[in-house]
C-alpha cells in the first residue's frame, strides 16, 4: 500500500490561491473567536486542567465506567451493543435495519461512522443513507469525505454549493445566497426525515452515572433524526465517556468555545431513553481504541473531544486543506490518530507539521499533540517507514556531522553552498528549497575559518 502523499496533495490544493486563502481566513477567524471566548472565561486554564484530569481518570478506569454506563443505559430501557471493529459496527447497524425491512436511514453528523465507512457498507446492501447535517450532506452529494471534523465542507465556496445543489436538487445555480441554499437543503431533507423509519446520531459524550448520550449540534438535525423515526441508533466510540453529569459540565463549557468561539451550540441534547412507542440502541465501538489506550506514548490522544481547535490553528492544515491528509481525521489530531489505524498508509502524516506547538496550547483537554507528532516520526523510523532516500541522506549527514574533519571539508568556503546543502538540508529533492525561495549564499569565509584566521592566528602572534 502506498503512503498518502500529503505534501503533494497540499501542493495541488495551493495551486488554487483564492480557495486556499479563503480557507485560511475562515479557519483563522475560528481560532480568533476561540481566543475571544477563552478570554471571557477567567478560569479557562483551570477548566483545561480539569478536563484533562477527568479524561485521564476515565480512560484509566475505562472498563469500570463502560460497565456502569451499560448497566444504567440498560436500566433506562436502551439496548446496548458492543462492536470490536468497524465491520462489527456496520453489521450491527445493518441487522437492526434489516430486521424491520428498513431501507432508508437519516443520520446526523458522526465522524465515527466515517471512520467505519458505514455509508458504503449500507448502500451496497440497498439501504439509502441521508446525511442531515448541511455540511455533511454537501460532502455526501459531492462524493467526498469531510474536509474538517466540525465544518465538513468549509473548503467549498458558496458557488460550489450552488452548483452542487443545482445538479442534485434542480435549484438555481446562480443563487449563492446562503439562506437560499440552506432552504433548498431543508426542503429536501425534511421529506427524508419524515419518511424515514430509522435515525442515527453520534454522541459527543456518554455519561456513565446516568446512561445518557449527549449530542451538540447547531442545526437541530440530530434531534429530528433521533425523534422522528421509531428507531434511534447511536454510534459512539468508547473513549467518549465521562463519569458524571457534573463532570460533563466542564466539557460542555469547553467544547464549543474551543471549536467556533460560541459559548454553546444551539442544541445540547441529552438522550437517556427512547420515547414512548420507539426504540433506542447504542453501539459502543472500539475499532482500535483499546489498542491505542495501550500505547504508552500515545494513549493521551484518546482524550480528544473533537472540537477542531488544533485543526483551526494549524498553519499547515490551513494551507493544505483537509482532504490532503487522505484520512478520516485530519490536521494535528489526525496526524496522531491515523497511524494507529494503518501505519504504512499514514506514515507520511507525522511530517506534515512544523512542530510549532500551537495545537497543544489550544487543546481544551491538553493533549501534547506536537510532542506526539514528534514521537510518531520516531515510530516511523522504528517501523522502517522512513523513505529510503531520506534515511540514506540522514546517514550521510550523521557521518559528516559527527566528524570534525569531514564537516570542515564539506563546509569549507572553497566548496560551494550547493555542494553543502544537499548533504544535510536538501537531501532528496535537490531543487525543493529553490522552487519558491532563493537559496542562501554561502559566506566567503565560514565562522570556523574566520575564527581560525582572526583569533587563533592572532593568539599565536601574541604568544598565547
Amino acid at each position, binding site marked *: 500500500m502506498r503512503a498518502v502523499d500529503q505534501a503533494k496533495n497540499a501542493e495541488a490544493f495551493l495551486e488554487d490561491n483564492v480557495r486556499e486563502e479563503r480557507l485560511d481566513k475562515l479557519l483563522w477567524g475560528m481560532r480568533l473567536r476561540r481566543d475571544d471566548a477563552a478570554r471571557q472565561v477567567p478560569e479557562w486554564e483551570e477548566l483545561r486542567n480539569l478536563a484533562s484530569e477527568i479524561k485521564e481518570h476515565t480512560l484509566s478506569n475505562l472498563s469500570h465506567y463502560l460497565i456502569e454506563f451499560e448497566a444504567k443505559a440498560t436500566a433506562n430501557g436502551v439496548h446496548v451493543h458492543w462492536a470490536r471493529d468497524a465491520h462489527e459496527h456496520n453489521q450491527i447497524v445493518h441487522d437492526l435495519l434489516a430486521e424491520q425491512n428498513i431501507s432508508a436511514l437519516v443520520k446526523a453528523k458522526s465522524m465515527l461512522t466515517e471512520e467505519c465507512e458505514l455509508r458504503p457498507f449500507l448502500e451496497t446492501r440497498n439501504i439509502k443513507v441521508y446525511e442531515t447535517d448541511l455540511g455533511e450532506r454537501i460532502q455526501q452529494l459531492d462524493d467526498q469525505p469531510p474536509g474538517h471534523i466540525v465544518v465538513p465542507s468549509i473548503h467549498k465556496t458558496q458557488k460550489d454549493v450552488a452548483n452542487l445543489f443545482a445538479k442534485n436538487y434542480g435549484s438555481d445555480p446562480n443563487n449563492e445566497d446562503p439562506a437560499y441554499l440552506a432552504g433548498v437543503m431543508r426542503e429536501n431533507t425534511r421529506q427524508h426525515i419524515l419518511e424515514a423509519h430509522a435515525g442515527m446520531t453520534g454522541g459527543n459524550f456518554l455519561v456513565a452515572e446516568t446512561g445518557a448520550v449527549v449530542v451538540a449540534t447547531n442545526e437541530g438535525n440530530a434531534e429530528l433524526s433521533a425523534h422522528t423515526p421509531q428507531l434511534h441508533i447511536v454510534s459512539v466510540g468508547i473513549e467518549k465517556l465521562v463519569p458524571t453529569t457534573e463532570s460533563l459540565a466542564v466539557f460542555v463549557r469547553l467544547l464549543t468555545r474551543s471549536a467556533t468561539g460560541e459559548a454553546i451550540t444551539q442544541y445540547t441534547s441529552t438522550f437517556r431513553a427512547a420515547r414512548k412507542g420507539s426504540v433506542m440502541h447504542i453501539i459502543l465501538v472500539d475499532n482500535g481504541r483499546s489498542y491505542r489506550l495501550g500505547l504508552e506514548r500515545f494513549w493521551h490522544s484518546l482524550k480528544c473531544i473533537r472540537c477542531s481547535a488544533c485543526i483551526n490553528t494549524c498553519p499547515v492544515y490551513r494551507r493544505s486543506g483537509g482532504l490532503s491528509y487522505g484520512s478520516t481525521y485530519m490536521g494535528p489530531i489526525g496526524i496522531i490518530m491515523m497511524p494507529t489505524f494503518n501505519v504504512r498508509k499514514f506514515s507520511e502524516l507525522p511530517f506534515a*507539521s512544523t512542530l*510549532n506547538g500551537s495545537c497543544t496550547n489550544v487543546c481544551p483537554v491538553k493533549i501534547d499533540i506536537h510532542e506526539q507528532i514528534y514521537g510518531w516520526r520516531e515510530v516511523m523510523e522504528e517501523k522502517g517507514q522512513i523513505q529510503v532516500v531520506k534515511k540514506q541522506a540522514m546517514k550521510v*549527514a550523521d557521518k559528516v*556531522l559527527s566528524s570534525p574533519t569531514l*564537516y570542515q571539508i564539506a563546509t569549507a568556503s572553497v566548496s560551494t553552498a550547493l555542494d553543502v546543502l544537499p548533504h*544535510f538540508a536538501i537531501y532528496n529533492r535537490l531543487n525543493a528549497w529553490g522552487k519558491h*525561495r532563493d537559496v542562501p549564499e554561502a559566506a566567503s569565509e565560514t565562522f570556523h575559518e574566520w575564527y581560525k584566521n582572526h583569533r587563533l592566528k592572532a593568539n599565536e602572534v601574541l604568544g598565547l
Partner: protein
Amino acid sequence: MEVALMIPCYIDVFYPQVGIATLELLERLGVDVVYPKEQTCCGQPMANSGCYEEARATEEHCARLFGSYEYVVTPSGSCTYHIRNKFTAAADSKEKESLCRNTYDLVEFLHDVLKVREFPWATFEHKLAFHTSCSAIRGLNMASMTERVHDPVFSKPKALLSGVSGVQFVDFERVDECCGFGGTFSVTEEAVAAKMGYDKLAFMQKSSPDCIVSSDMSCLMHLQGCARRQKQNIPFLHIAEILNGVSL
C-alpha cells in the same frame, strides 16, 4: 565566567557574521568565551526527521565536546530546544547530562543569567518587525503565546532590544504564527512552507518595517529566501547583531 560558544552549522556556513556578533557581544559583557573548534552540529536535522538512529553519532560528538562546560551558549532557540528537550539519540553519559542542563539560547543567557538590560554601545534608529520562533515561544518560554490568553504578555528578546537606543517595533497580524521553516519540513513540504513564509512576510510588510529581526536565523534563512524571490531587499538581522551595535 567561562562560556563555550556553540555556532549552529547553518550559521557557520551562511551567516558567520551572526557568530562573530555573538562572540563579540559576550566578550563585551566580560565573558570568557571558548570556541571548541571541532564542533559541527547538535543533531537536530536528523532527529527532527524521525531518524534518531542517524542522529546518535552527531549528538554524542556534541556531548563529548561540550559536556564539561558550566555554560554552553548558542544563538539559536531551536538548537537549544533540541539539546534541552530532545537529545535522546545519544547514549546517557555525564557529558550529555551536563550539556542538556547547561545549554542556553543567547537571549536566555543575556536575559536570565547575565541579566543585562542595557546595551549602551549600540544604537539602532529603525523600525523592526520582530519574529519570535516557535522553539523560542512554545519550546523555551522566551515569550508569551497568543494561545494562552490569560498569561501575562512578555518577550525576553524584545526586553533586550528595548535596551538599544532607537529601536522601534512594528506590530503585525498573526504575530506568533509559525513562519513555515520547521527544519526539514521546509524541504519535504516546500509548497506549504513557502506559502507560510510568503504570508508571514506579507503581514510584516503591511507595517513597513525597515528590517526583519529574529533570535533564530533558521526562520530568517527561510523568510529571506521568500523575500529575495519576490525581489524584496529588506535586511534580515539576528538579534545578536543589533545588540552588538550593527548599523544598517
